[in-house]
C-alpha cells in the first residue's frame, strides 16, 4: 500500500474522530443555550404581509397598552423601507423570537430564555441589567428601562388594558408575542391565532389583517398555509438566527 493512502486513511480517521467530538461539543453547547429543554406541541410564529401593511402604527399602540410599555420604549416598531408602484412599503418589527437567539445565548443569568414553543421570554426578576442582550440582538428588538415608568400610560384605555405588570427600572424588556394571552387562552381551550383573546394584541388590532399569528407545527394553521402559498423571507437570514417572524414581501398585484 502506498504511504499516501495510509496517510489519507489516518487523516480521515482523525477527521472523523474530530468531527464526532465537535458534534458532541456542539450538542452540549446547544443544550445549554438556546435550545430549551422540554417539549411543546406548538411552534408559534408570526407572518407579516407587507403588501397589506399601511403603516398606521395601530399595532405599536395596542402593544403599548396591553403590555403597559413606557412612552420612551417600543417593542413593536414600524419602519418605512421604500416604495413599490408609488406606494410606501412598511416593515413592522416585533421581536423575531429566534430559534438560535443571540440574546438567550449571551445572557449571563438565564433571564432570557427560549421556551419549548419557541417564544423567547424575559424573567424580569432575574435580569441584572447588564444590557449584553441589547448589544447582541441583530434586530434592535430589545429596550432597557433607563428610568422608572411611574406615570400614566397614554395608550390606556384607548388601545386596551394592561395585562402584565410594569417592568422595574434597570432591566431589559422586549416583545413576548403577548405570551400572557397565549398561555391564558390555551388554558381556556382557545386557539391562539384563531381566537382573538388568545392572539397577540398587535395581530388582533391590525385593521388590514397584515399580521397573522399561529402554530407552525399545525400544517392547517393560517401561518402554515400562508407560508406554503406565498414566497416569504426573514430578516438577516444570513446570521442563522432562525427568526420565527416571516415577511410576505410587498407585491404589485396586491397593492391595487
Amino acid at each position: 500500500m502506498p504511504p499516501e493512502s495510509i496517510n489519507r486513511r489516518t487523516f480521515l480517521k482523525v477527521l472523523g474522530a474530530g468531527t464526532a467530538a465537535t458534534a458532541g461539543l456542539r450538542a452540549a453547547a446547544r443544550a445549554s443555550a438556546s435550545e430549551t429543554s422540554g417539549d411543546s406541541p406548538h411552534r408559534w410564529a408570526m407572518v407579516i404581509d407587507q403588501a397589506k401593511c399601511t403603516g398606521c402604527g395601530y399595532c405599536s399602540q395596542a402593544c403599548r397598552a396591553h403590555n403597559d410599555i413606557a412612552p420612551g420604549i417600543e417593542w413593536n416598531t414600524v419602519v418605512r423601507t421604500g416604495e413599490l408602484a408609488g406606494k410606501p412599503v412598511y416593515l413592522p418589527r416585533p421581536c423575531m423570537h429566534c430559534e438560535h437567539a443571540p440574546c438567550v445565548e449571551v445572557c449571563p443569568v438565564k433571564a432570557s430564555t427560549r421556551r419549548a414553543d419557541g417564544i423567547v421570554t424575559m424573567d424580569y426578576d432575574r435580569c441584572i441589567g447588564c444590557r449584553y442582550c441589547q448589544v447582541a440582538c441583530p434586530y434592535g428588538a430589545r429596550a432597557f428601562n433607563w428610568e422608572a415608568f411611574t406615570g400614566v400610560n397614554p395608550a390606556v384605555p384607548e388601545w386596551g388594558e394592561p395585562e402584565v405588570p410594569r417592568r422595574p427600572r434597570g432591566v431589559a424588556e422586549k416583545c413576548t408575542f403577548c405570551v400572557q394571552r397565549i398561555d391564558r387562552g390555551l388554558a381556556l381551550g382557545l386557539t391562539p391565532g384563531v381566537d382573538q383573546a388568545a392572539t397577540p394584541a398587535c395581530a388582533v388590532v391590525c385593521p388590514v389583517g397584515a399580521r397573522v399569528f399561529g402554530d407552525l407545527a399545525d400544517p392547517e394553521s393560517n401561518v402554515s398555509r400562508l407560508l406554503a402559498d406565498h414566497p416569504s423571507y426573514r430578516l438577516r437570514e444570513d446570521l442563522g438566527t432562525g427568526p420565527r417572524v416571516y415577511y410576505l414581501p410587498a407585491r404589485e398585484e396586491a397593492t391595487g
Partner: protein
Amino acid sequence: MTTQLTSAAYVDRLRGDMGPTPYRIWMALLGVLMAAGAVAGLIVFSRGLVVTNLNDIVPWGLWITIDLSAIAMSAGAFLLCAAVYLLGLRQFQPLARTATYLGLIGYSMAVLTLLLDIGRPDRFWHALVYWNPHSVLWEVTMCVTLYFSVLMLEAAPIFGRTAWMQRRWPRIAGSIQSLHKLAPYLAVVGLGLSLLHQSSLGATYGVLKARPIWYRPDLSVLFIVSAMAAGPALTVLVSMLAARLRKGVRVDDHLLDRIAGFIGWVLVGYLYFRFWDAFAMTYTYEPGRTEGLSFITSGPLSFNFWVLEVLLGAIVPIVVLLHKPWRANSLLRMLALGLVVTGLVAYRWDMTMAGQLVIISYLPQEVAATYTTYVPSLIEILTGAGIVAYGALAVTLGIRHLGVVDHTPEPEHEEILESVAAAA
C-alpha cells in the same frame, strides 16, 4: 499649670502640620475627585441610568472602557506571579508583590464600575447563582469573582506584614502572613483564571454576530496580548514613580529594566497580531465590518488609532524599550511605559465604540451602515474619575503604608522560594 496654646500659636502649628506639600496636594486632589465621584454615584443609584448618555443603540460606554482597562492593567499580577513561582525567576518576587497589589486594586475598580453600570446592582450576585455557562459574560463574572478572591489571598500577606497589624493583632498577622505558603498554588490558579478572563473580555465582543467589526476570534488574542504589555508596564511605572517621589522606597533598577525590555518584545508581538488582524479585514467587503474598519482607520476614531494606539502606544515604546541606552534613561523609560498604558486605554475605548457606533441594518436589501455618536455624560465622567482617583489613592497609600514597592530582600519569603526552586 499646664501649657496652654494661645489661639495664634495653635493656628501656626496647624499651618506647620497642614501646609501644602506635593503629597498633600495630591491627596487633596484625589479626595475632591472621589467626593465628586461619590456624589455622582449616588445620583446614578437614586435616579437610574437615565443620567448617562447611554441609550438602546449604544448601551455600553465609558464605564465599560474603564472596567476593561482596569482589568487589563491588572495583568501584571498573574504574569509576575507565574514568573516567580512557576518559572522560578525568584529575583522578581518584590515586583510580583507590587503587581499583585495593583491587580487587587484594579479588580476592585472594575467591580465598582460594574456595580454602577448594571441596571440592578442589588442583583450583582445573580450570575453566581443562576448559571448560563454558554454566556461569555457569565464566565467573565465567574472569573472576576474567583480571581478577585485569589488576588485577595495573594495580597493578604502584604497587609499581614505591616507593623500596625503585627502590633495590634499579632496572631492574625501571623496567620495571614503564612498564606505566603500558598503562593505557588495561587500562581497556578491565577494564571489559568487570568488568561481565561483577559481573553474572555475580548470574546465578550468577539462572539457577537450582530456587530461585524467585533465578530472575529482575534479579539480574544489581542485583548490578552495587549494586557500582557500594559499590566507589567503599569507595575514598572508605579515602581519607578514610587522610588522617585518617596524617600526610602528602594527599587532594583536592573529588575525594572529587564521587565521593560520584556514589555518591548510583547509589544512587537502585539503589533504583529494587530497588523494581520486589521489587514485581513481589508481582503474583501463585508457589510458592517468594512465600515467599522474605516471608522477606526479613517473615521472619527482615526486619531486615536494611528496616534494613540499605533504610534505612541506601540511603535514609540517598542523603540524606546528595545534600545538599551534609551531604556536605561529612567525618564524615557517611564514615558514609554506611560504611553503603553495610554495606548491600551485608547484601544479598549476604540473597540468598544467601533462596534456600537457603526450600526448594520436588519432591513432587507439594505447593507448600508448607519452611524451614531456617543459622548459620556458629566455624571459618567465624574463617577469614572472618582473610581480612577480611588485606584490612585489606594496605590499611594499602599506605597506609603504597606510597602508594596520595596525591593529589599525578605528573609521569611526566601524559604518558600527555596522550596519552589527545589521543586523545579
